[in-house]
């Protein structure tokens, strides 16, 4: 995306995996579980801009921010700053870059030493980087406090004596102390009250204009992101699913995930009707992410298989049934009523399975109906595993088979969803995909 000469930070193929292996015995037995918190992310931060990164909790946005600054050691990929790859640098060299790359935490109190005064907190980086000492340092600290809207006299107070908003100002002053190029803001306003949140957002934008800062701004609140960001990246399970200039991301065409996030925002307007898509469940575990498109387990717009003539809504229901059958070992759990299947008449059971997954009494496609009916009958016999296998082989969405590439729609606006593949047919909602 764009011209690389003006970028202040460029991240390429960044991965941050960590091991959640369960102690000695697991290692002895060779069982390993890798958490793929960040799994191949590219982005570029240009001078003076704000890049917003948004996603639900568990999508990996904080790990991404920390590994980009090497606060966490990335597993793979590169982070270029001033032409050097940070991931390849030794600690002393890295320190030099760190001055330009500052981090502001969500809860400033937890990142501030409670025994230091505000003055020491802000002055510490000045000393560490050898920028100012003694009276010069004190004067610089007082200036910084003023810059972020605190009083000069606040230098003698302790962090716990400040309100949440003031502490966040303190965190920002500390980051500013070393005159950085880039500030990574990790949910800087999510713990604050609405009125204070607005103050901090305004402060950040004033500072950006004044000092020519570039921000990587991480938040779960799309309203905040839309307000602050010039460009936005939407993250899901360790990957970017959509990115582009803010206006393009917040306007259709959407990635189905972005669309779902947007329609979930509660609008402060009593007449506003909540409609649009709804998302079920939470982000799946990053230990063993879903195959193909990682969003397929929740996507309301999942692409039906071209062999059948089914809408994506029905397909969603069938996929949910498949997922449930795969997970459970109890056939009763797939019905709306949870009666023992072998003791309920087949029709009742069939009806309640369909009800639970929002499926019509007969699927519009005869082949599909045949496969579904057979699976439900198998479930009715209590053979859950066999039913799951039947469903698996009969209904596999292209979204489960292909990992979508990022399709570029406009300049700089990319969406990683098969619906934007050339082979996708709007009319029939199917994808002409070759065998994988």
């Amino acid at each position: 995306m764009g011209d690389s000469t003006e970028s202040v930070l460029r991240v390429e193929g960044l991965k941050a995996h960590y091991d959640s292996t369960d102690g000695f015995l697991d290692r002895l037995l060779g069982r390993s579980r890798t958490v793929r918190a960040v799994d191949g992310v590219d982005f570029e931060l240009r001078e003076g801009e704000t890049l917003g990164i948004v996603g639900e909790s568990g999508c990996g946005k904080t790990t991404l921010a920390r590994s980009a600054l090497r606060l966490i050691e990335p597993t793979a990929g590169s982070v270029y700053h001033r032409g050097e790859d940070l991931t390849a640098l030794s600690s002393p060299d890295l320190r030099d870059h760190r001055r330009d790359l500052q981090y502001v935490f969500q809860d400033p109190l937890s990142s501030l030493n409670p025994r230091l005064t505000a003055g020491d907190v802000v002055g510490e980086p000045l000393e560490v980087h050898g920028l100012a000492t003694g009276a010069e340092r004190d004067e610089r600290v007082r200036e910084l406090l003023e810059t972020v809207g605190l009083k000069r006299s606040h230098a003698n107070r302790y962090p716990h004596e400040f309100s949440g908003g003031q502490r966040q100002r303190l965190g920002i002053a500390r980051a500013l102390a070393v005159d950085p190029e880039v500030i990574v803001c990790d949910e800087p306003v999510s713990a604050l009250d609405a009125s204070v949140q607005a103050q901090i957002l305004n402060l950040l934008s004033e500072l950006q204009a004044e000092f020519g800062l570039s921000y990587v701004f991480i938040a779960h609140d799309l309203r905040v992101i839309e307000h602050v960001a010039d460009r936005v990246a939407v993250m899901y399970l360790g990957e970017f699913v959509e990115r582009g200039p803010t206006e393009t991301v917040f306007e259709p065409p959407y990635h189905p995930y972005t669309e779902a996030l947007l329609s979930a925002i509660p609008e402060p307007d009593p007449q506003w009707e909540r409609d649009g898509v709804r998302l079920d469940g939470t982000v799946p575990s990053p230990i063993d992410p879903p195959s193909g498109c990682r969003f397929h387990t929740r996507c309301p717009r999942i692409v039906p298989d071209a062999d059948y003539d089914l809408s994506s809504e029905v397909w969603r229901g069938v996929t949910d049934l498949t997922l449930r059958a795969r997970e459970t070992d109890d056939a009763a759990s797939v019905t709306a009523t949870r009666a023992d299947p072998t003791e309920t008449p087949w029709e009742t059971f069939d009806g309640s399975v369909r009800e639970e997954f929002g499926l019509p009494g007969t699927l519009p496609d005869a082949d599909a109906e045949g496969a579904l009916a057979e699976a439900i009958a198998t479930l009715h016999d209590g053979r859950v595993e066999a039913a799951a296998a039947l469903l698996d082989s009969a209904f596999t969405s292209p979204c489960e088979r292909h990992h979508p590439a990022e399709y570029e729609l406009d300049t700089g606006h990319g969406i990683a969803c098969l619906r934007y593949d050339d082979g996708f047919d709007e009319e029939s909602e199917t994808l002409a995909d070759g065998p994988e």
Partner: protein
Amino acid sequence: MTALLEVEDLTARFDTDEGIVTAVDGLSYRVEAGETFGVVGESGAGKSVAARAVLGLIDDPGRIERGEVRFKGEDLLSMDESELRSVRGDRIALVFQDARAALNPVYTVGEQIAETVEHHLECDPEVARDRTIRLLDRVGIPDADARYSDYPHELSGGMCQRATIAMALSCEPDLIVADEPTSALDVTVEARILDLLADLTDEFGVAVQLVSHDLGVIAGTCDRAMVMYAGEAVETAAIEELYYDPKHPYTAGLMSAIPRVGDGRDRLPTIPGTTPDPIDVPSGCRFHPRCPFAEEACTRRNPSLVDPETGEPATIGTDRAAACLEYTDGLEGGLDYSVEIDGATGEHAERGGDCDG
């Protein structure tokens, strides 16, 4: 006509090391049967304390100083512990912000719901278990049978919140007091939980006192709402009036400070300063240090809740009330703000359409 819940002149204090904090000061409001009543405010407004005070759940070092909490005409605060216990969980249930913390980590989710059912409905464990599983299923927990035996840490935050909602509903109460039930959740989950609450209030005819800091949450779910600031109610109104014609400067300020998708504003209007130190609240109108319309009189006189049209003191039955001197004494400069409704709803209509596409 008495309302389902009538809170009158409720005052709760906390003894802290720094001094006495009056967390809730002379609060009066009502919740009608079957309605959803919102309580909005920022941290320190006293909304959570008010929520807990309804059930007499103010622990040391706090105490309820005065006031009445009448539930179906009976004052809960003058009941003895055992009478109060027969109301708690049975007639009035509480839903917490952090659902996982509100569940005991060492018992399964199902056990805890069944425990409540067994206790209040005096039924067999088997019956309680069945009822619990049906409830878990009703609140949208898939595979409720298996989830019954899950411990709280094995469920996601959203699922835990669903479980505590099932718990709150378990004895078919008349009132659910929900204290920031969705603040700890992701938007997508929040939207689901709010849908669920709305469905359930319809289905069970239960009234809800919904406490939230998020004006968006209140707008989408409540029939009427009350805005609190520094322990006091500053405005009460039917929901549309509150949003389209706010009478108190704080309400208006709060609404304009929220970033809205598509509003294209570069700067957000802010309310300067922060909520006051509860130990040392400002004299006169508590909002005056932050109020853009404050005048000299505001520093001296504390405005009481009045009907903004007539200036008559508000009673518990008043539907529209605000506490600003403008409505009693008249301010020299008046209140100078306007609400742009068309622009705002226009935005939504446009986006709503897009979502369907």
